[in-house]
């Protein structure tokens, strides 16, 4: 059988996938992240990265930032399905190419190497706001903030300077200018 992928209908024409950043404001209550993530896995949507933390301690609102890919129809469904969840207050959606939105990810790099290499490592990071968080004679931990693909590239390039461990967050997003998403 040529097409055993779906038992229900023959897949129609494939549309182009876009990368979107979905921001969700939710009540910070037990299980709320499971609801959001479960919606993605249950309906077969993709999660590239996810960042979540409480942003309003008074009203207990958390902000979840999800990077996802999908056809325009799928992205619309994601937004509409999210809005149906009871603890969800609002949902924003940005294209990754959107110039009006700032996206940042943070990464921690640990290097174990000789002094010369450690200096080169810090030097290589200089475009991405490097902060040295810890330093010994043989090692250092550097924090950078950058775009996803920049961090991808950096973690590849830095191996030659003794990169032994990478820890990174999902993307967070904020609009430029004075506008606030309502």
């Amino acid at each position, binding site marked *: 059988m040529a097409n055993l992928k779906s038992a229900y*209908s023959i897949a129609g024409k494939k549309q182009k996938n876009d990368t979107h950043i979905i921001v969700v404001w939710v009540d910070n209550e037990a*299980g709320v992240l499971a609801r959001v993530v479960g919606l993605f896995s249950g309906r077969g949507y993709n999660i590239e990265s996810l960042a979540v933390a409480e942003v309003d301690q008074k009203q207990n609102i958390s902000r979840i930032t999800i990077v996802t890919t999908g056809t325009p129809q799928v992205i619309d469904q994601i937004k509409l399905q999210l809005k149906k969840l*009871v603890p969800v207050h609002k949902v924003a959606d940005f294209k990754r190419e959107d110039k009006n939105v700032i996206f940042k990810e943070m990464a921690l790099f640990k290097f174990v190497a000789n002094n010369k290499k450690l200096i080169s490592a810090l030097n290589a990071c200089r475009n991405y706001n490097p902060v040295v968080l810890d330093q010994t004679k043989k090692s250092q931990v550097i924090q950078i903030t950058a775009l996803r693909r920049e961090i991808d590239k950096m973690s590849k390039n830095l191996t030659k300077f003794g990169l032994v461990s990478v820890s990174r967050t999902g993307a967070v997003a904020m609009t430029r200018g004075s506008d606030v998403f309502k």
Partner: protein
Amino acid sequence: MPKLYSGAEIVFKCLEDQNVSHIFGYPGGAVLPIYDELKNFNSIKHILVRHEQGAGHAAEGYARSSGKPGVLLVTSGPGATNAVTALTDAYMDSVPLVCITGQVPTHLIGTDAFQECDTTGITRPCTKHNWLVKDINDLAEIMHKAFEVATTGRPGPVLVDIPKDIQFQKTKYKNYQKVKKLNGKSHDNFSQKNIDDLIGLISKAKKPIFYTGGGVVNSGPKASELLRELVYATGFPITSTLQGLGCFPADDNQFLGMLGMHGTYEANNAMYSCDLMINIGARFDDRITGKIDEFSPKSKKVHIDIDPSSINKNVKVDLPIVGDIKSVLTSTLKTLKKSKKNFSKSNKHQISNWWEKIQRWRSKRSLDYIGSEETIKPQYAIERLYELTKDRDAYITTEVGQHQMWAAQHYKFNKPNRWMTSGGLGTMGYGLPAAVGVQIAHPKKLVVDIAGEASVLMTMQEMSTAVQYNLPIKIFILNNEYMGMVRQWQELLHDKNYSESYTAALPDFVKMAEAYGCVGIRAKTPEELDDKIIEMLNTDRPVIFDCLVDKQENCFPMIPSGKPHNQMLLGPKDQKEKKITGKGRTLV
């Protein structure tokens, strides 16, 4: 000092304030404090089922036939997991249910305690929302919110999980003050512009059709009245999904019958060829659309739905209108009357060619079948059942399979809320417990479960419930000894390899009825069928009716999987000529 109430008492205070009169349930360790309190609340009657799935389906039948939310009360662990099928069923078919589950005491949660399971985790994907009550002071608010979530917007099931220690703890009880909107969620988002656009499309259409669904039932009886008014005011043809049957009278000339996989020839061809499709409260389900790339290729599509996520999910539409059907139809009728007086008359000419075409499709008589004098044809059995019950405002439930489709095709519904069937999830075993729930909601009415012998065995134990509460439900079994729909698909798609679809050791349903303490009747020939049905109708007790029907009969017409609406199989002859091949075989 205000009076303090235990958690168990608060549960009942909330049910009282929500005007709940019946709950379906099954006791167990983690809900004993609630059951202990039952005796102190006379306005609430508990119906003891025999399995928690039965409680769920009974609550569904109750809700669907009465328009009120159904309530079930079950224990932790297996009680909760047994209810999952019913919750999922209610979620798929948008039935408002409130499921209250017991949970192990809070200090034992997470320790793999006896009859512990992660109830809120398990039911998260099959409820609109669920809550684990961790603080007695939250209980009343959560209970009331549960009813609000279940019944507002697109209805659905919710679950409240209450640990045993919370049921014992005491606190004050406050009645609930409705907050304005739950997290800013609103349901009527349409504008007058939407309505004007709709009227514009209506007045231009040459080949229009209304395609209506369960949303009309959910919007209340008034919505069905408005729908009728609109259909008459436009003179357009109307077809309905499985769940929408009854919103428009089936014997009216403008009604084309059900559409979809086993819909009529005229309904499906009209859907394929129309130039304006007005979807009211249906969701472009795959049983309806057939091959999606070739679904109604030339039409402008309007979609009226309360759930914004239903719109553009499967089929892209030209005019989405998000709102409660009742209010959308009210505005539409108002605008139509104002701008186009006597529209149905002035427009008659514009759509007369369309109606002629429809009449031609109709003349194929796609629901006809080859009769027999020796064996009872299942379609004939349903036709007779309909003829003999049509003046009695009967409530019909079904199981899932061929009998369900035959019931939908041959039983004619004229009112909403009279037809309870598991459409989205397709749950075999739904009909019998649902009939229990319907009979509870309508004690004086005739309630018939049109069943298959395989489905009905899945929840047969609920006959015991029917006997206990003197519920005179009629279980009308079309017995062909096969899982008929499975057999039909094996015949069409798997070279007649009837793998495991024959039930070799069926019980004697008449003796079984007697064992349960109800009445068993068997009909073997077409000749005796009427008398036996009348005997069933005259029996004021639960009846299991074993109707022995043709074992080989297939359900037609049929859109074979992977085919568009205009390529239907009309009967056994067609089946040979249009063999299903290639990709179509992989579909369900």
